């Protein structure tokens, strides 16, 4: 149990540092910066106590926002995907009850894992750009930024999760 807590604390710190020091400055094609911090929501253990996910996501978002001077946009976005994680997971798996304690995200088939990551990333990125532009006349920029940033975020977090997490039996 303590090993699980330790692993999550390390993951939290690494995600924040990698996001603000590396991925915020990638500027692929001039302006695309993947939001890899959303992996926190994918990888957080599925427990019956869902409040812990909300609280930790909130602090993660506040840290990202502090470092990138974005007010509260990343916090608002990650809170929404943290709140809707379980319903979306149930939707992707097409069943409503599963074993919370033994559940591991790597036990999903690759298709379902990819779909799960894609839906959550897309929601998060869309909210981030919506709140950043804060103006419906810029809807074209919001959508194009959302799509491009989502694609790179999804690819990086999908392969990142495949590489850095172990499959449980």
């Amino acid at each position: 149990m303590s090993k699980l807590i330790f692993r999550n604390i390390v993951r939290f710190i690494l995600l924040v540092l990698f996001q603000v020091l590396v991925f915020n400055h990638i500027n692929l094609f001039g302006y695309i910066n993947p939001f890899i911090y959303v992996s926190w929501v994918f990888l957080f253990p599925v427990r019956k106590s869902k409040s812990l996910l909300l609280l930790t996501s909130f602090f993660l978002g506040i840290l990202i926002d502090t470092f990138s001077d974005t007010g509260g946009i990343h916090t608002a976005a990650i809170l929404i995907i943290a709140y809707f994680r379980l319903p979306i997971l149930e939707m992707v798996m097409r069943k409503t009850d599963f074993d919370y304690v033994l559940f591991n995200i790597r036990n999903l088939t690759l298709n379902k894992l990819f779909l799960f990551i894609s839906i959550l990333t897309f929601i998060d990125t869309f909210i981030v750009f919506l709140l950043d532009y804060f103006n419906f006349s810029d809807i074209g920029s919001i959508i194009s930024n959302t799509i491009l940033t989502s694609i790179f975020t999804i690819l990086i977090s999908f392969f990142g999760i495949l590489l850095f997490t172990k499959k449980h039996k």
Partner: protein
Amino acid sequence: MQQLFYFIQKFRYFLLFLVLEIIALTLTIKNHSYQQSKFINSANFISGGIYNQVSSISDFLNLKSENKRLSEENIRLKNWVEENKQVDVNNIVAHIDTSKYHQKYQYISAKIINNNYSKRNNFLTLNKGVKQNLKIDLGVINSKGVIGVIKNISKNYATVLSILNSNSKINVRLKKSFHYGTLVWNGKDYNIAQITDIPRQATIKVGDTIITGGKSAIFPEGINVGVIKDFKFEKNQYKEINISLFNDMSSLSYVQVIINYQKNEQKGLEQNNLYE
């Protein structure tokens, strides 16, 4: 009462989400208004300290361009000094009476330790703060042109509202005539900014230089901004005047912060006018 507890018990997960989401949205809205100073910003000692460490590692990467820029500025200033030496020798008057001599602006050197230019609303972080006499609402420039205005400040760090931000509105004018406008940014290309509010009687051409107007108390007059790239003239109005900035906003390192000693005097006078 018991029903209230039952209600909270039943919906506590949703209520927690709601409270946190409202906090996040409040912070976002505060971030979008120019007047309010932000609660969450990178000018604190943790993020400032981390950025400072990391920038000291990556510093040597842009040493070459920074040297070139400094050398260019030296040449410009030396030429300017030589031009001004051509004065009548008989008329040289030494300013000894300090009561007649007022220094209006002072420049402080600072370094950008975190640069952003790819978002819609960009902020930069500086490695100097209250300890080095910086204040909120001071202008930030480098030798090539305008960079932004200081927005938040802590003991050792400050954040700068970049000209690449939807809240940034800087008074500018044409170099060749005294027609004033406002420098804004539409969020598309970090090399290209826009000017609005240019009066229609102004004659502008592609290639005209834009400089700061000096009407606000933040920037002195005559700091370079950019040249006009293209524009549209529709219905007797100038639309979409694009200017390409002299500054490459993607590689900024050392900058100068401008302190205006007569700011309070100017502001006070302008305030008095408003109330009359």
